[in-house]
């Protein structure tokens, strides 16, 4: 574990642990409160496993009323609360704090209503992303956003992070696919935002909450939009001799007016890694490999696939396969889907980054990443959601070597800074969490961050809900002169500079 600045620990809260635990038992069953070390251990970390913290206690409420009472109590008693879905997040958004209650939503695991008439599903937040699709697929429907962790990640977590996935190029991310939520505010207030209608009137609180990383409220119910499965889906597997050719092909496909359902790219390092791992039969002579998936009516898909292959040829593709059936299509994807475990097999640890860039800068950023790889002497493999410019460089390292972990984090930060420099974003779909917190100053100035903190303060006055996440906490950021306290106003006690 590397050094990580965390909000000031409230020793008083820790000393009151027994009293707090016994008080929490008033709100939910005894068995829903975990306070012994061995019980708490699984909750020490989330998908960003480099960081671990032991929470004061873990509470697993069973209904909205319990959540409301727990939050109200914690608010009154100044106890920090860290909400957690399935704990699959990659930016440390559910990292506990020693003086905080970890509020797990795992018991909110039921689908409440399948409403085919209104084309939506009302579900508790602990249901997995894929669980929703499973519940509606018998009638030919599915839930569109498909983060790679969809088998395990919870829909509540998806809302908190505004999760995307391979198909967000055509179908959007979580924010474009939810209709409503029920949410409990830090003071215990229960509110419903949206419902089964398109849009909501007044301030778009749904848009604000989606992607707010558990800082504004705890989601206790979600209404998601479901779509009818397309009639026909086909994919092309295309190899290019140079990174530039592949990058240009992505831009040309998009500017030709085609909106593929997904457009993925892998570099040479990843092609080799995944091929060894999953035997996907990827071309050996390709510097980059692209999977383009198209969906729609049969003749439309066939026509678009032809157009895509023409554009690829114009961009010097040196291999091309078009899927003729589901088996072939899934085989194309098998390597890409094995990207993470394949990297896991190549090094003791890997660190998955998540930046966004304009599509036209793909080859440029790939070159820069390779330069950085040499500079830090750490291997990197790259998987891109190329269609929407979302990069996932996977840096390979040995976590038992503290120095390597430090270098890895520095390498990752340099990649993200480069993304911002090229007009992109620090995070495309994984969230800021604790991981990219100190880099927020790359994207935002003091006014921008202060405005966001003002919103946070207006809904969670004491900064008790998931503190220490998203917004910078270290002095470093400030000392570099990019951020300073704005006229000494609106200062959070736990955030030294804001």
């Amino acid at each position, binding site marked *: 574990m590397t050094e990580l600045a965390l909000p000031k620990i409230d020793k008083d809260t820790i000393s009151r642990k027994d009293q707090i635990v016994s008080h929490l038992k008033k709100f939910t069953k005894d068995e829903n409160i975990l306070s012994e070390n061995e019980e708490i251990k699984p909750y020490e970390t989330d998908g960003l496993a480099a960081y671990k913290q032991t929470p004061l206690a873990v509470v697993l409420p069973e209904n909205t009323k319990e959540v409301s009472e727990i939050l109200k109590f914690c608010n009154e008693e100044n106890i920090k609360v860290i909400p957690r879905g399935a704990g699959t997040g990659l930016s440390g958004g559910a990292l506990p704090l020693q003086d905080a209650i970890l509020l797990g939503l795992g018991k909110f695991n039921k689908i409440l209503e399948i409403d085919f008439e209104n084309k939506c599903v009302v579900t508790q937040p602990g249901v997995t992303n894929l669980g929703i699709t499973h519940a509606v697929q018998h009638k030919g429907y599915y839930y569109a956003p498909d983060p790679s962790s969809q088998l395990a990640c919870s829909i509540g977590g998806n809302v908190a992070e505004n999760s995307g996935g391979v198909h967000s190029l055509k179908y959007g991310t979580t924010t474009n696919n939810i209709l409503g939520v029920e949410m409990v505010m830090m003071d215990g*207030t229960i509110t419903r935002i949206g419902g089964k209608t*398109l849009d909501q009137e007044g301030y778009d609180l749904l848009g604000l909450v989606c992607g707010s990383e558990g800082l504004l409220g705890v989601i206790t119910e979600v209404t998601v939009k479901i779509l009818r499965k397309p009639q026909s889906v086909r994919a092309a597997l295309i190899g290019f001799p140079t990174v530039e050719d592949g990058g240009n092909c992505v831009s040309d496909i998009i500017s030709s007016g085609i909106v593929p359902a997904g457009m993925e790219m892998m570099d040479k390092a990843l092609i080799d890694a995944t091929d060894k791992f999953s035997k996907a039969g990827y071309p050996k002579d390709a510097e980059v490999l692209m999977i383009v998936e198209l969906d729609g009516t049969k003749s439309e898909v066939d026509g678009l696939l032809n157009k895509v292959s023409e554009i690829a040829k114009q961009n010097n593709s040196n291999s091309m396969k078009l899927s003729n059936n589901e088996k072939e299509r899934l085989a194309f994807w098998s390597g890409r889907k094995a990207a993470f475990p394949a990297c896991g097999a190549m090094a003791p640890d890997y660190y998955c980054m998540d930046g966004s860039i304009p599509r036209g800068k793909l080859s440029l950023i790939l070159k820069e990443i390779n330069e950085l790889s040499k500079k830090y002497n750490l291997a990197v493999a790259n998987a891109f959601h190329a269609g929407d410019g979302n990069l996932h460089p996977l840096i390979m390292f040995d976590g038992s070597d503290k120095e390597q972990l430090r270098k890895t984090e520095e390498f990752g930060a340099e990649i993200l800074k480069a993304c911002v420099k090229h007009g992109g974003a620090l*995070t495309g779909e994984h969230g800021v969490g604790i991981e990219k917190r100190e880099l927020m100053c790359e994207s935002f100035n003091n006014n921008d961050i202060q405005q966001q903190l003002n919103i946070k303060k207006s809904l969670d006055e004491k900064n008790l809900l998931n503190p220490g996440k998203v917004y910078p906490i270290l002095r470093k950021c400030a000392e570099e002169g990019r951020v300073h306290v704005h006229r000494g106003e609106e200062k959070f006690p736990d955030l030294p500079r804001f």
Partner: protein
Amino acid sequence: MSTEEKKNSQISLDSEILSPSTEKEVSEIVREIYSKQLPIEITGTGTKKGFGYNLQTAKKLSLSKLSGIIDYKKEELYIKVKAGTPIQDIEKILDENNQELAFEPIDFGYMINGQSNKGTIGGYVACNFAGSRRFKVGSVRDHILGFKGVNGKGDIIKSGGTVVKNVTGYDLSKLISGSFGTLVVLTEITLKVSPKKQSQITVIVYSDEIKKISNLFDKILSSSNEVSAATFIPEEPSHKNYEHTKNKVFKFNDLDQEGSFLAFRIEGDKRSIDERLKELKIELDLSNFKSSILDVHQSIPFWKKVNNLELFSGTKNNVLRAVMPPAKCEAFSKFLNKNYKYYIDWCGSLFWIEVLDKDDEKINKIKNFIVENSGYLTILKKSENFDFQDTLFTIDNTRLMISKKIKESFDPKKLFNPGRMYREF
């Protein structure tokens, strides 16, 4: 702003209408009004002035001089513009490049005074009222990649950027969409643009039976054939105070003017349109209905008329906008039928309703029905003798309380468009 800059700034608040031409000037003006506690009305070209409660501020901040395209990257599918840029200018440049704003901006000018006027992009984003393609592509807010603006203290703030995948910090682009200028003075907006579809046709299905219409909407929504718009235009009520405009507005060679009709649009290349039409005919059981087809030359103007509320062109009556869960389409249509001039868009979800002047009690009844059925109502145009006592927007107390807090976090002295959305702020 540095001390030096402060000294140099000479912002005068003398005139009633303040028309800054740069973002910095907007910021300076707001700093001044903040220090003097002067509420202001924010306007573009004033097309949506009548939406919400009327304002009586001493000063107006006009963004009409803050106009122009900053950056258009066709291949990256975005356009960055100043907030006061006329929508028409944006659509023109996109059209020249075979692209468009997928949310189909509505031209409210017809409803307001019978003349086309789309207004500015800032005004449009502030309302978040998407056009006919909404159920397929999302709302205005789903197409805002980022913005810059000035908050109630005069600070220039930004959120988002130019890329589609971006979860860095709160998604304020969503929050400012539909905030009716009560949170920030928008100065810059980055919009996602989409390639234009090659062609389109519109299928007209003739029927007066609401049950059948609502069933057709449901089948269209359930279809994977990507219908991009669906509307129902009923016969108008016979009441003499409703102007009978249907047959004047929807005058097309291949549209039979007798009776009510449902229309849906298929877009794409010719081959794909043909294929989807064939499948939809079966899915919707169209052999049981009288139907006709508008070719691309008729289809494009048809949807402009639907989208631009031309049925209500120049009306002196009230115009209401209601959004319902799609399954409530039949019940709500039956409630409205023959009593009101109305039509349905968004494939059964969006209702545009005209209510006669001096009929506020009826507005009340409509609102009650909508709220009981989990929808929401916005009263957009108010007639001369409008005296409706309830709120113009639909909101519950908890959301109002949260909204008030958010308002204060942007505009602590409540200076921007005070009272436009809710009397409370």
